[in-house]
C-alpha cells in the first residue's frame, strides 16, 4: 500500500484488498456464528515484546511531534503514559502468563463485520474521493500512499482490537487506532487540521492513561496476569472488576467522544470525508463503545455504571439539541454521531440484559446509516463546493440519485420502521424495566424529538424541487456509485433482516452473559415489516399521477415566479428568494449547550472518580 505510487496501481490494490477483507469477514461470520465463544491460545511472547517495542517507538514519535508543534498537553500526556508503560513492563511483565490471547464471539463477529465490510467499502470510495480532493485542493501535499496505508493499518487494528482477549493487546490496538486517527486528521497539514489532530490525540491519550492505570491495577491485584484476560476478568465478579472497568470505560468515553470530550470529534471533521466516515462514525468510535458494552455486565446495578450511563444520556440529549443549530453538514453528522454513541453508552451503563441487546442493535444500525450519510455528504460537497446544508436545496433535482440515497440514510436514522427508531423503541421499553430508568426515558423522549427536527429539516431541504437546475451528478465515478449503492442497500436490508441478525448473533451473546435474552414480539415484527414494505411500494404511486395533474407555480401572493426562485417584486424589479431553515441558535446554540454539557459531565465523572477511590481504599 505504501509502495503503490501511481493512481491506477493504488486503485487496483485498494479494490482487491477491500474485496479480500470483505470476503474474509464474511467467511469468519459463516464459520463462527454458531460456535458460541471460541478462545484461542496463542503464545504471547514475541508478540507482546514487539508490541511493547512499537508502543515505545510511537510514544517517542508523538513526543517528537508534540515538542515540534509545541503542544504541552500532548507532551505531558505521552510522557505520563510512556512512564506508566515502562513501569508496567519493567515491574510486572516478567510474571505475567496469559494464555488465552485471542477469542471470537458473536459480538466480535459483529464488530469485525462492520469493520470489514463497511471499512472496505469506504476504502474503495476513498480512492475516487481523494483524487477529486487533490484536484480541488492543489495546495495540500499529496501523501496518498501514506493515507491508504494508514487506512488499512487502521482496519487491521480494529480486527485486532475486537479479537483480542489479552487486555494488553487490546491496549496496543487501541493506541494504534489513536495514532491512525491523529495522522489522518492532520492529513491536510493546515494549521486548523494540525491543532485538531493534537486535540484528538490529547483526549485519546488521556483515555490511554486511564487504560494503562487499569492494567497496572490489575497487575498489582493479580501478579500472575490472569485478570488481564478479558473473559476471565468479566467472569470474576464485580468486586474485582469494577475499578478497572470504570477506568477502561473512561478510556472508552474519550474515544467515543462523549461529553466532556466531544470537541475532538467535531474538530476532526476537517479531515477528508472517508476518514470521518470510517474512523469517526463507523469504526474507531465504535471501539470506544464496544469496550463499554463489554463491561456492561460489570457495570450493571452499580452507581458508577449509572454515572457512566448518565454521561452517555446527557451527551445524547445535549448533542441532539446542538445539532439543531448547526448548518455545516459534517458538524450535524458529527453531533448526531456523538449523540447516538451517548445513547449506546447510556444503555450499556445501566446494563440490563435487554439494554445490552438494544445497545448492540443501535451500534449496527448507526454504523451503516452514518457511513452512508458521510459518504453522500462527501460526494455532494465535491460537486457543489460547499458543506452548508443551506446550499443543498433542491438536491433532488441536481443530484437525484444521491438525494434519494441521502433520504434513505436519513430515514434510517430517525424514521419508523427503520433501524434507529426500532432501537429507540426497544430502548424505551427496556429502560422502563430498569432501575432509575425514568431519567433515561425523559432523555430519550426529548433528545429523540430533537433528532426528528434536525433530520427532517435537512430532508426537506434536499427534496424541495427547484426548477431549472442542471443535473450535476454525472461526473461521479463508477466505484463511488458502487459503494453508495451497496451501502444504501445495506441500510434497507439490515432493517429487513434484523430479526435474523438478532436471533443468530445478538441473542445468543446476551443469553450467554446474562442467562436470559429478549427480542421484539412477533406481532410487532410483522407490523414493522409490513410498514417497511408499504414504504417501499409507495413511491410507485408517482407513476399513477402522470396524467390529469396540472402544474402551477407555488403561491407567492400572486407574484409571477420566473424560473428558479426569482419573482417579480414591486416596481418591476426581479428579486431572488432565499429560504433557509430554522436554526434557533438562541435556544440550541453550540456554545451555551456545550458549556452545560461539559460541566455536567465533568461533574459526573468526578463523582465517579471519587466513588472509585473509595472502592480502592
Amino acid at each position: 500500500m505504501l509502495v503503490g505510487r501511481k493512481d491506477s496501481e493504488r486503485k487496483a490494490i485498494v479494490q482487491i484488498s477491500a474485496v479480500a477483507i470483505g470476503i474474509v469477514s464474511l467467511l469468519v461470520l459463516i464459520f463462527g456464528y454458531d460456535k458460541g465463544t471460541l478462545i484461542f491460545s496463542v503464545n504471547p511472547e514475541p508478540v507482546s515484546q514487539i508490541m511493547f517495542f512499537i508502543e515505545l517507538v510511537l510514544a517517542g514519535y508523538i513526543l517528537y511531534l508534540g515538542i515540534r508543534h509545541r503542544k504541552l498537553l500532548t507532551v505531558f500526556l505521552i510522557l505520563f503514559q510512556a512512564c506508566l508503560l515502562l513501569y508496567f513492563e519493567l515491574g510486572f511483565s516478567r510474571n505475567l502468563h496469559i494464555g488465552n490471547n485471542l477469542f471470537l464471539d458473536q459480538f466480535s463477529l459483529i464488530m469485525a463485520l462492520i469493520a470489514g465490510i463497511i471499512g472496505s467499502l469506504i476504502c474503495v470510495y476513498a480512492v475516487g474521493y481523494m483524487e477529486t480532493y487533490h484536484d480541488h485542493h492543489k495546495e495540500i501535499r499529496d501523501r496518498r500512499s501514506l493515507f491508504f496505508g494508514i487506512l488499512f493499518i487502521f482496519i487491521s487494528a480494529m480486527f485486532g482490537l475486537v479479537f483480542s482477549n489479552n487486555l494488553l493487546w487490546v491496549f496496543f490496538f487501541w493506541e494504534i487506532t489513536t495514532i491512525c486517527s491523529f495522522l489522518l486528521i492532520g492529513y491536510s497539514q493546515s494549521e486548523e487540521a494540525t491543532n485538531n489532530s493534537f486535540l484528538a490525540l490529547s483526549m485519546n491519550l488521556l483515555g490511554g492513561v486511564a487504560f494503562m492505570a487499569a492494567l497496572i491495577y490489575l497487575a498489582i491485584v493479580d501478579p500472575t496476569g490472569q485478570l488481564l484476560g478479558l473473559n476471565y476478568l468479566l467472569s470474576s465478579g464485580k468486586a474485582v472488576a469494577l475499578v478497572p472497568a470504570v477506568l477502561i470505560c473512561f478510556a472508552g468515553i474519550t474515544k467515543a467522544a462523549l461529553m466532556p470530550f466531544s470537541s475532538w470529534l467535531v474538530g476532526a471533521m476537517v479531515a477528508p470525508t472517508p476518514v470521518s466516515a470510517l474512523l469517526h462514525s463507523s469504526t474507531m468510535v465504535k471501539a470506544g463503545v464496544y469496550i463499554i458494552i463489554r463491561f456492561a455486565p460489570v457495570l450493571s446495578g452499580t452507581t458508577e455504571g449509572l454515572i457512566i450511563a448518565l454521561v452517555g444520556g446527557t451527551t445524547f440529549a445535549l448533542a441532539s439539541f446542538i445539532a439543531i443549530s448547526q448548518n455545516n453538514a459534517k458538524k450535524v453528522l458529527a453531533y448526531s454521531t456523538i449523540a447516538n454513541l451517548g445513547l449506546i453508552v447510556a444503555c450499556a451503563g445501566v446494563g440490563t440484559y435487554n439494554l445490552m441487546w438494544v445497545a448492540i442493535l443501535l451500534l449496527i444500525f448507526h454504523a451503516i446509516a452514518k457511513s452512508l450519510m458521510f459518504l453522500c455528504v462527501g460526494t455532494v460537497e465535491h460537486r457543489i463546493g460547499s458543506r452548508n446544508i443551506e446550499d443543498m436545496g433542491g438536491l433532488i433535482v441536481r443530484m437525484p440519485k444521491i438525494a434519494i440515497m441521502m433520504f434513505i440514510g436519513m430515514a434510517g436514522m430517525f424514521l419508523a420502521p427503520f433501524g434507529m427508531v426500532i432501537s429507540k423503541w426497544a430502548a424505551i421499553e427496556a429502560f422502563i424495566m430498569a432501575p432509575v430508568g425514568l431519567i433515561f426515558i425523559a432523555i430519550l423522549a426529548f433528545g429523540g424529538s430533537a433528532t426528528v427536527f434536525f433530520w427532517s429539516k435537512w430532508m426537506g431541504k434536499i427534496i424541495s424541487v427547484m426548477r431549472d437546475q442542471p443535473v450535476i451528478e454525472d461526473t461521479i465515478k463508477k466505484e463511488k456509485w458502487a459503494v453508495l449503492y451497496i451501502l444504501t442497500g445495506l441500510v434497507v436490508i439490515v432493517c429487513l433482516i434484523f430479526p435474523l441478525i438478532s436471533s443468530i448473533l445478538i441473542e445468543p451473546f446476551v443469553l450467554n452473559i446474562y442467562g436470559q435474552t429478549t427480542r421484539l414480539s412477533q406481532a410487532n415484527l410483522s407490523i414493522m415489516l409490513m410498514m417497511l414494505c408499504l414504504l417501499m411500494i409507495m413511491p410507485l404511486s408517482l407513476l399513477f399521477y402522470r396524467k390529469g395533474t396540472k402544474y402551477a407555480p407555488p403561491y407567492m401572493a400572486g407574484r409571477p415566479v420566473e424560473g428558479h426562485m426569482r419573482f417579480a417584486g414591486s416596481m418591476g424589479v426581479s428579486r431572488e428568494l432565499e429560504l433557509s431553515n430554522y436554526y434557533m441558535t438562541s435556544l440550541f446554540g453550540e456554545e451555551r449547550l456545550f458549556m452545560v454539557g461539559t460541566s455536567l459531565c465533568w461533574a459526573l465523572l468526578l463523582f465517579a472518580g471519587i466513588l472509585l477511590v473509595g472502592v480502592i481504599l
Partner: protein
Amino acid sequence: MTYLKKSPWLLHYDASSCNGCDIEVLASLTPLYDIERFGIINTGNPKHADIFLVTGGVNVQNKQVLINTYEQIPEPKVVIAIGICATSGGIYRECYNILGGIDKIIPVDVYVPGCAARPESIIDGVVTALGILEQKRLAMKTKTETKMVKAGDAR
C-alpha cells in the same frame, strides 16, 4: 348534482379598489349575514378556492398578479366582478393607470354592479355563480368521460 354548490370557497382579491366594495364583501362574512352557514369560507389561498371575487379596476401593476392568481385556482372556477369598477372601471375609468374592468384581463362569469355593491347583491351574485359553477363542473365531468370514451374507441 355536484358538491361545489354546497361548499364554495371564496378568494377575495382587491385589484386597485377604493376598498368600499371590499368592506362590503367582508361584511357579508360577519355574523349579520353569516354566509358560512352555506358552507362558504373565505380562504386566502387560490389553490383552495372556487370562486374568485375581484373588486376594483385593474391597474398596470396588479394586472400580472391577477392573472397569476387566477391561474393558480384549480378548475372548475368562477370569477365574480364586484362593484362597477371591476365591471368597467367605474369612476376611475379615465385614469392613466386603470385598465378598466377585470374582464379585460381574465374571463368573468358574474357581474355585480354597485358603488359600493351591497352585501345582498354580493350574496345574490355568489348564488348565481354557484349555478354556473355547477354547470362547469358537469361540463368538466362529461369532457373527461368523452376523453375516456374516445380513447376506448381509438383502441
